[in-house]
C-alpha cells in the first residue's frame, strides 16, 4: 500500500469504528437486546481474534511456517493461564522469541 492508501484505510476504519460506537449509544435499546445478536457478535469477536492469533503466529506472507513465534505463544498461553497481567504476557512472548532467535533458532 502507498502512504496515501494507508491514510485512506486509517481514516475510513476510524470513521467506521466511531459510527459503530455512536450507533450503540443512539439506537433504541431493544434493537440490540436480542440475545441472538449479542451472542453472534461475541462469537465473531472471538473468531476474529483466534484467526489473528493464528495468522500472526504461523503466517509468513502466503506461507505457513513454524518458528520462534510458536513457542513464544505457548509461553504467553501459560502466563495467561497463571493470570499474569496483560503487559507481562506480551513481554514474555517477545523475550521468548527474541531469546530463541538470539540462540539461532526460528
Amino acid at each position, binding site marked *: 500500500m502507498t502512504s496515501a492508501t494507508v491514510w485512506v484505510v486509517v481514516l475510513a476504519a476510524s470513521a467506521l469504528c466511531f459510527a459503530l460506537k455512536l450507533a*450503540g449509544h443512539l439506537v433504541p435499546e431493544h434493537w440490540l437486546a436480542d440475545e441472538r445478536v449479542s451472542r453472534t457478535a461475541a462469537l*465473531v469477536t472471538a473468531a476474529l481474534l483466534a*484467526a489473528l492469533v493464528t495468522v500472526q503466529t504461523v503466517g509468513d506472507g502466503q506461507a505457513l511456517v513454524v518458528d520462534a513465534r510458536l513457542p513464544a505463544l505457548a509461553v504467553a498461553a501459560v502466563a495467561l493461564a497463571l493470570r499474569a497481567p496483560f503487559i507481562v504476557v506480551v513481554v514474555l512472548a517477545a523475550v521468548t522469541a527474541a531469546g530463541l532467535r538470539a540462540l539461532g533458532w526460528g
Partner: protein
Amino acid sequence: MSRPDDVPTPDADAPAALDPAVTDAVEHAVEDEVRAAVRQAVSVSVATGLYGISFGALSVVAGLDLAQTMALSLLLFSGGSQFALIGVVGAGGAPVAAVATAGFLGVRNALYGAQLGPLLALRSWHKVVAAQFTIDESTAVATAQRSRRAVRAGFWWTGIGIFVLWNAMTLAGALAGDALGDPRAWGLDAAAAAAFLGLLWPRLASRAMRATAAAAVVVAAALVPFAPGGVPVLAAAVVAIVIGQVDARRRVRRPTGAEPGVRPGEESR
C-alpha cells in the same frame, strides 16, 4: 451484564421521608463506591495504557508512519481493531480487507454502547463524546458498578484515562519502533500474536466460544496459503456467523439445554 436489575437507580430516587441518618449512610456508601470505581479505573488505565507502547512499535514496523500510527490511536481508539488493521497492512493485504477487519472487530463496541446508554443516561451531545471512549475496559468497569454516579465515574475515568495513556504510550512506542531496526530480533511479531491471545483468552469461558475459536484457527490456517492477506481472518468471522445461526436454531429446538451464556465484554484489552 445486561440484566435489567443492573440498571442503577438515580440517587434522587431515595424516598424523601427517610431518616436523615439513613440518607447519610446511603450517601457515604455511594461515595465509597465512586472512590472504588475511580481506583479501579486508574489501575485498568495504567495496565492498558502501557500496552500502547507495543502498538506504537508494531505499527511503524508494519509500515505505517508516525502520523498514521497516532491517527489510529486518537481516532480509531479500539485496541483490537487497531492491531488487526496494522496486521493486514503489514501482511500486504487489500485496503478493503484492512477496513473490514477493523470494522468487524469494532461491532462489539456498538453492543457496549447500547448497554451503557441506559446506565449512563447522558444528554445527546454527551453521547457523542462518550461514544469515542466506549471500549472493552470502560464498559467492563462501568457495568461493574451499582449506583449511577459510580457507573459514570467508572466509565469516564477508565475511558479518558486509557485514552490519554494509550496515546502517550503509542507515541513512545512509535518513536522507539523506528529506532529498533529488525522487529523480529526483538520478538515483536510474537508480541503481537500474544496480544491477540490476551484479548481472546477471557472470551473462552463458554464451550461455544472455544469451539468457534478452534474453528477459526483451522479456517484461518487453511486459507493462508491460498487467500490474499486479510481474507483468512474475515473468513473466520463468516464461520462465526454461521455457527451463531446454527447454535441459535439448536437452542430454539432445545430451549432447556441452557449453556453458560456468551456475554460480550467483561474482559480487558
